[in-house]
């Protein structure tokens, strides 16, 4: 480790001080230089300092350096004996942006330790590295929910069409709510009806967050065949789910949803009345005019605005 940078040279004695606090503060000052020449000392501290708080500090400070020795050091720190160090290293890895860094991380995604696997997968998600797809696909069957959750993220971000059947299977079969929810959202990149059945089934999930995600995703996909299921979802126990169902029926311009949406105009939650009013405009069916007129004096100004917008749409005017 050599340098001629006077700022670094000045810090060297404190970096090897006997006192943990002194070493840690010196490390913070070293990183503050943002000079690549300081990286060897930071990597060394991460891997070799006897004090866990110094190693954890090094793991935090090394964030956003893409150099291979840094990435390797951070990956190795995922198995540090100290919990703080492992968490800090995982967080710093998740900030990386280059595919070269991703290739270093890749093998760690199959590590025996759950935390290492999920952290590596989390770091890989934003990198959209094609090579991570087969590994993520395998990880969908991992025994740990945290790993499956990150694997779904990778496949969703890569928009891997080949992974759709597996993702669709998870939507209904995974025991973990969050995995089912993110898998439901990940189906949003599909461009055909292959995922319809899984999404419709998800509208009946026992957890409302999954049902909400399913209602939203069906709107994003714009599949007409989803209409009847979304109409049923207008009677969900949670108004949050009904709201997304109403919005998606609007996006689909699903003509047969009209009478059900009209009923929603009378719901006690105004957020929902507003969404129903907007959706009725999107259906472009003048049959809704009378019901909308009756709602023109709703007590909530947002609902009144939505009604005016929709009436203008139905009367052929611009908004």
């Amino acid at each position, binding site marked *: 480790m050599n340098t001629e940078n006077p700022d670094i040279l000045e810090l060297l004695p404190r970096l090897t001080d006997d006192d943990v606090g002194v070493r840690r503060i010196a490390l913070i000052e070293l990183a*503050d*230089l*943002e000079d690549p020449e300081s990286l060897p000392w930071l990597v060394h501290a991460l891997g070799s300092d006897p004090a866990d708080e110094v190693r954890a500090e090094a793991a935090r400070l090394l*964030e*956003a350096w893409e150099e291979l020795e840094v990435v390797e050091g951070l990956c190795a720190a995922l198995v540090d004996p100290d919990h703080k160090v492992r968490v800090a290293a995982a967080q710093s890895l998740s*900030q990386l*942006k280059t595919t070269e860094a991703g290739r270093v991380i890749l093998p760690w995604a199959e590590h025996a330790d759950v935390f290492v696997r999920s952290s590596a997968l989390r770091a890989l*998600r*934003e990198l*959209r590295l094609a090579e991570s797809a087969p590994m993520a696909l395998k990880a969908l069957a991992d025994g740990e929910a945290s790993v499956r959750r990150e694997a*779904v*993220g990778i496949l*969703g*971000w890569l*928009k891997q069409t080949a992974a759709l059947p597996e993702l669709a299977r998870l939507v209904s079969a995974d025991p973990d709510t969050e995995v089912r929810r*993110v*898998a*439901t*959202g*990940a189906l*949003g*990149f599909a461009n055909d009806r292959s995922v319809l059945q899984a999404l419709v089934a998800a509208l009946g999930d026992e957890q*409302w*967050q999954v049902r909400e995600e399913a209602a939203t995703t069906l709107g994003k996909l714009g599949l007409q065949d989803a209409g009847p299921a979304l109409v049923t979802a207008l009677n969900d126990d*949670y108004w*949050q789910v009904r*709201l997304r169902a109403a919005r998606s029926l609007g996006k689909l311009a699903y003509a047969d949803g009209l009478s059900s949406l009209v009923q929603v105009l009378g719901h006690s*939650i*105004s*957020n929902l009345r507003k969404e129903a009013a907007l959706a009725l405009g999107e259906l472009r069916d003048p049959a809704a005019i009378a019901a909308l007129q009756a709602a023109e004096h709703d*007590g*909530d*100004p*947002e609902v*009144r*605005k939505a009604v*005016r*917008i929709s009436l*203008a749409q139905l009367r052929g*005017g*611009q*908004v």
Partner: protein
Amino acid sequence: MSSHNTLEQAYDIVIIGGGTAGPMAAITAKEKNRNLRVLLIDKANVKRSGAISMGMDGLNNAIIPGHATPEQYTKEITVANDGVVNQAAVLAYAERSFETIEQLDRWGVKFEKDETGDYAVKKVHHMGAYVLPMPEGHDIKKVLYRQLKRARVDITNRVIATRLLTDASGAVNGVMGFDCRTADFHVIKAKAVILCCGAAGRLGLPASGYLMGTYENPTNAGDGYAMAYHAGAELANLECFQINPLIKDYNGPACAYVTGPLGGYTANNKGERFIECDYWSGQMMWEFHQELEGGNGPVFLKLDHLAEETIQNIEEILHSNERPSRGQFHAGRGTDYRQHMVEMHISEIGFCSGHSASGVWVNERAETSVKGLYSAGDMAAVPHNYMLGAFTYGWFAGVNAADYVAERDHSELDEAQIAAERARVYAPLQRESGLPPAQVEYKLRRFVNDYLQPPKVTRKMEIGLQRFADIENDINQMKASNAHELMRAMEVSVIRDCAEMAARASLFRKESRWGLYHHRVDYPLRNDAEWFCHCHLKRDENGVMTSFKKAVEPYLIALDDNEQQAYNRLRVGAA
């Protein structure tokens, strides 16, 4: 004279203010030309300075392909500002801002994305969708700092810039200021200066009476407005004040654009929505004010109808970003979103183009009316620019200033200007006894509330002008015991300048416009025949504060009658 040192330096470009726009301007100038000597100075420390010192929880003017278009956005900003906008400046933001998002994303700023990696844009406004949450936005200053250091921008912290230097032709050629710890005087030669000093946030006094309990970061006292004014720059539409709805007493933003997409809303004492206006504007603030003062007040943020999981999510976002002491405040008052609505109020007045339209005039190149002087961020008059506009205009300022200095040399500094400023700055330190700056500030800002708070009354504003003139005498009797107190003393003088500008600008425009921002009781109606124009203010050749009209630039994107009317229909008439 004092025993304090004077430090002299020379840079190609000096950027004043290291919050949001400033770092972007500095990095951009260096990227444009590695050989430029670029200095960023900040009265605080750039690591945690400015309006976003603790991060930001979302963008509310993101124009993301597939969700909104630059043309649509420009129309909405035009309508929300009652037509008085330079569309070229708004459109320039709108067309560039997506690139800014992508740049920030590459740097490591986290924007919310859905499970397929697409930006998770939320629809809040009427015509387009502009809200992009940043649930992990607390790291944004860290990301900026890293980029600044890696771009090898020189940074000087804890120096308060007080005046700009100008050459014989009137062009800016330097900056003066002092160190708030040592009181050393700084004279910095510059070929171009970029002002990024944020809002004038210490103009009005918060309802709590606590001087530093402001909506804005109180470091943003209006330094940039005063420096630009004294350098001869034009300021635009200052009468379009900044007033924001906020959490009462805590005085931090309620963040309706975070809670809105999740189902929360602003309600009256019946728990009902009352805001008709779609866009964040003076009209919205007018409606808020009416409800607050009427029988349906006070006004609340209502979240108690949301699901437990949603409330946990809101707490996670709002209590960790932007103003993280919010959770502690609610706990202290026994407020739980699950059971209680949160009492709201409106903020003290200020200048801020980021939230309204009051700022130092700039064109779409971030140039002010003074040669060599650029401005960006909350203090630069591009309406409703917010954080993303600050970054985007910081980029414009960096690029254009780098081009401007390329072929220029430093010009001779005027020793008379330096001597005068040195004497002005050190006067409070040299007095044996005198008025405490905090008390002069308190009285000044109480007068601002008494005489300038809308609805604006002519006679009150005239009295206010007299009081602000009296405060000038008090300023000349302030004593500062140390460099820190000297910083506060100099800020009082900045606040006084802003107060006078606010009064004169408000008296000049003899109509009402922009809802509560400029509601004049003596001229209660909008008068397009006489006042469909910008109102500019500047220091004329004789040193007199002068206001004048400027025509609104021809629209680049026309609004048809329907669009105009659709908006007018949504309005509640001025009562």
